[in-house]
């Protein structure tokens, strides 16, 4: 695709959890829990309230279409603040300090008096119904020419367990939100900027690592399209795919608009109750939600509702997303019927009742009367937007890089002041006192310079989650090559094999490497020992499970035996016999003694005989 011709502009918002001792507005630790460890559950309703602008925000209003009752899991590591049963503490100074450090690294200007705001979020992920957030600094620069508009310090939301149940352990963990200007014009550029900012963040050594601790929201629009925010992109490598698929979607929607207009397509006002047509249906979906089935005819939409607009997504999927806001499972449209147990006869009867011609598409939804009526109106609303082009939306990323509708883009009305938190002054002295941390790119260069590590590997180490482990290992006197190979290559290979070594503590890894360093454990044994450690075994047990180490004298005895049995072969082949005999020896000792030692002993033994 020619992104320049399409007028692609994109910006990103990066959300990164901070690794502080306490949460942002309470004194709970910032640790995640297993839901089995919960010690309480609270149940609440949330409702939209009139904001200071005197209007209910359209995004919040959308969520209110379903009046929802939420459940929250509490832990001995959460408190009444997460429960929204106690006012917040002052803003965590450690979190503010980290945020200011990042701001300084990005050459941003701090706000002289930082105000905490309440951002309305009534999807249940915040017990209060709002997320506390504060704008800390503005106008910086990243990676040469990307403008950073703002950095905000905000509280992380509660983690969704199921549809209406949330876990409070994550709620309140400090999070920085970095927003760039819409200054990127290709999918690759978006990834590069995200990567650069990610490097800046990790350079502070004060951010959380691991899955879910950093999330990217991408804002994308093309000429004649609309600004769409795609939330929750967790992997950097997916960013170009997400951007290109969204461009594809917007291009498709614009083409659909032109086609619909040329066909004179129309969206009707009302809905039609067709429950009786499906009274003896075999369709499991319709039967399950049987109380009411509503239909509507989209004039001139035939073939378009079922048209793919990005991989795995059709215009019908978009309409279905809107309908789901009313609590229904989705919708059916005649572009895809008969299917799902709906028969040809039923489709014919439906078309007849709905007065649908060949050029028209009929949509149906099922649920309670209230749900079905609400859902069909929502679907019609989305169908109407197809005549306009691309709607401004907040969307969520789907696993492969496509996206689904979440809610309209929120307006400014969703913010009002958090009166329970006093403003914080940021002085020039505070900024001057911040020491800029060494960037990870500089760390990598230093590893090459000081430790003699190849630059590609050095970069790997510096950017890896195991950087602190590596540094501890070097400080403990472990050979850089051994530490780098183990912590980068070996762990990555194991992870490719599905072995999760994430839970192995640094101390254990370093202890293991020290034993390898001293020759007590063979380096060949490392992968197998790590497997055992990943399975939960303590270090001693893991080492034993791989087999007791082979002493050099044991090895000499073993090799003498093997060489004696093959004396003739060795005399014939001379040194060329080394390879084949080595293979035989290694079969016996693999993982129990260093291969280099085996080779040396064997070589000496062969030399004696020729």
């Amino acid at each position: 695709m020619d992104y320049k011709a399409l007028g692609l502009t994109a910006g990103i918002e990066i959300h990164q959890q901070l690794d502080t001792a306490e949460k942002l507005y309470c004194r709970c630790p910032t640790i995640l829990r297993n839901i089995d460890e919960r010690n309480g559950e609270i149940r609440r309703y949330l409702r939209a309230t009139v904001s200071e602008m005197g209007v209910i925000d359209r995004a919040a209003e959308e969520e209110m279409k379903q009046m929802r009752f939420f459940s929250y899991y509490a832990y001995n590591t959460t408190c009444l603040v997460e429960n929204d049963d106690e006012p917040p503490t002052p803003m965590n100074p450690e979190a503010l300090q980290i945020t200011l450090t990042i701001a300084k690294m990005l050459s941003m200007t701090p706000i002289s008096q930082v105000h905490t705001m309440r951002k309305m979020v009534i999807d249940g992920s915040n017990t209060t119904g709002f997320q506390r957030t504060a704008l800390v600094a503005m106008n910086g620069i990243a990676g040469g020419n990307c403008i950073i508009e703002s950095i905000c310090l905000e509280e992380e939301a509660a983690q969704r367990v199921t549809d209406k149940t949330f876990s409070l352990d994550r709620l309140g963990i400090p999070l920085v939100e970095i927003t760039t200007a819409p200054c990127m014009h290709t999918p690759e550029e978006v990834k590069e900027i995200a990567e650069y900012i990610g490097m800046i963040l990790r350079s502070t050594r004060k951010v959380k690592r691991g899955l879910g601790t950093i999330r990217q929201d991408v804002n994308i629009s093309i000429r004649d399209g609309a600004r769409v925010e795609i939330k929750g992109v967790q992997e950097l490598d997916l960013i170009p795919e997400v951007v290109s698929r969204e461009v594809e979607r917007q291009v498709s929607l614009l083409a659909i608009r032109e086609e619909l207009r040329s066909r004179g397509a129309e969206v009707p006002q009302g809905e039609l109750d067709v429950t009786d047509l499906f009274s003896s249906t075999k369709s499991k979906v319709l039967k399950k939600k049987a109380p009411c089935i509503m239909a509507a005819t989209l004039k001139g939409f035939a073939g378009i509702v079922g048209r793919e607009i990005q991989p795995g997504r059709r215009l019908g999927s978009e309409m279905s997303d809107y309908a789901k806001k009313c609590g229904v499972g989705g919708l059916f449209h005649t572009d895809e019927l008969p299917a799902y147990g709906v028969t040809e006869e039923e489709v014919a009867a439906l078309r007849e009742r709905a007065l649908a011609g060949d050029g028209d598409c009929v949509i149906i939804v099922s649920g309670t009367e209230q749900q079905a009526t609400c859902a069909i109106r929502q679907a019609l609303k989305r169908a109407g937007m197809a005549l306009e082009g691309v709607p401004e939306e907040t969307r969520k990323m789907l696993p492969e890089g496509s996206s689904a509708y979440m809610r309209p883009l929120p307006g400014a009305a969703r913010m009002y002041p958090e009166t329970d938190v006093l403003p914080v002054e940021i002085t020039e002295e505070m900024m001057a006192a911040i020491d800029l941390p060494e960037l990870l790119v500089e760390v990598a260069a230093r590893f090459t310079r000081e430790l003699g590590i190849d630059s590609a590997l050095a970069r790997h180490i510096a950017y890896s989650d195991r950087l602190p482990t590596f540094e501890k290992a070097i400080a403990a006197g472990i050979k850089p090559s051994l530490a780098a190979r183990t912590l980068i290559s070996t762990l990555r290979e194991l992870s490719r094999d599905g072995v999760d070594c994430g839970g192995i503590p640094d101390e254990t890894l370093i202890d293991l490497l020290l034993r390898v360093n001293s020759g007590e454990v063979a380096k060949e044994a490392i992968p197998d020992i790590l497997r055992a450690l990943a399975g939960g075994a303590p270090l001693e047990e893991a080492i034993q499970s791989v087999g007791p180490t082979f002493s050099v004298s044991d090895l000499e005895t073993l090799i003498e035996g093997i060489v004696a049995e093959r004396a003739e072969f060795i005399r014939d082949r001379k040194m060329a016999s080394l390879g084949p005999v080595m293979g035989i020896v290694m079969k016996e000792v693999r993982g129990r003694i260093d291969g280099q030692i085996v080779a040396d002993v064997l070589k000496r033994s062969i030399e004696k005989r020729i």
Partner: protein
Amino acid sequence: MKTGDVVSCTIGGKTVEAVYITERDERAVLKLSSGYNIGVPFSEVLHVRDGEERKGVEPPVVQDSKLPELAIISTGGTIASRVDYRTGAVTSRSTADEIISAIPRLATIGRFRTSQPFSILSENMKPSMWIELARCIYDQIQAGAHGVIVTHGTDTMAYSASAVSFMLDTPVPVIFVGSQRSADRPSSDNVMNALCSAAVASANLGEVAICMHGTVNDDYCAVHRATRVRKMHTSRRDAFQSIGAEPVATVTYPDLEVSLHADAIGREAQKLALRDTMEEKCALISYYPGMDPAILDSYTSYRGLVIAGTGLGHVGTALMERIRELVCNGTTIVMTTQCLHGRVCDRVYDTGRDLLRAGVIEGEDMLPETALVKLMWVLGQTENPEEIRQLMQENLKGEIVRRSVYGL
């Protein structure tokens, strides 16, 4: 510059347009188009143009004339509120229309009229205001209110409810209600508390009570007898607890089903009457180890003094002399316990017996705050020491439970 004016401000070399909100600690608080507020030095703010007057549009409120008439009396508690976008301050909503537009479901329970005798933070409440409030409630009932809802800040709500309880014999429910978490937040307890209070204000009840969350969940409200309730937590939704008694009713949410306790006083069980004189020259003090007896000298001109004593109702013997003097000079002294739970008994230990000999009245199982309010009321009714003693030890409005039942 005034609130709402459009201004510009330069941050990091970039000029942004914003709305001026207010001054705070010598900084100009500006609202950016993103919705964020920031505080910047006034020297960096340039006035661009005057703001436009904005008014929130109120949807019209229609009340159903077939529903029972309920009176809402607001005293300053925020049962409904709105954030003033110009100042960021939370303002209370108190007219019937404002409350119903904030909590539309109320209109399905009753038709409402409202009055607002005053609007204060509940910590600024005074006995003279209790009297004004009692009169206001009396007027509403006389004017035909089927039930009365009093919105009140939670800090001193129990005092006010208790005071009204002594002053007023009511044939209809008089329900005090508030919220622990501000009404502007989507999670506020205000809506559920307000709806439950309206439900119980229409129910078969004839006494003064407080209706608040029964648990930290949005599942039911507990309705507490005014004289037995205490705020037992600074911030939790279920802060109000009946002490030494069971709630007189519960109201489930969201279905609003009222279940009355067997001991609840029914509608029309009492005839409407108001006895609204109170003696304000009364005090409540809490005894602590080593308390300087001279402290009691400050109370020589007081007509009544409630002591929250230790344990069964004790103070150190060092205070005994001053207590004797106070009683001799005509101060009524009532002993209650800082244990809150349990009954005063000054007949077990010597100190207690000395207190009785000095003329101190045992306050039975009355809560210290209730005993204070009751003493003010009793002293407002009579000057006869024997009558005062008798009234203080008699159960008038559920403040004394004659038997200490296990399990409460």
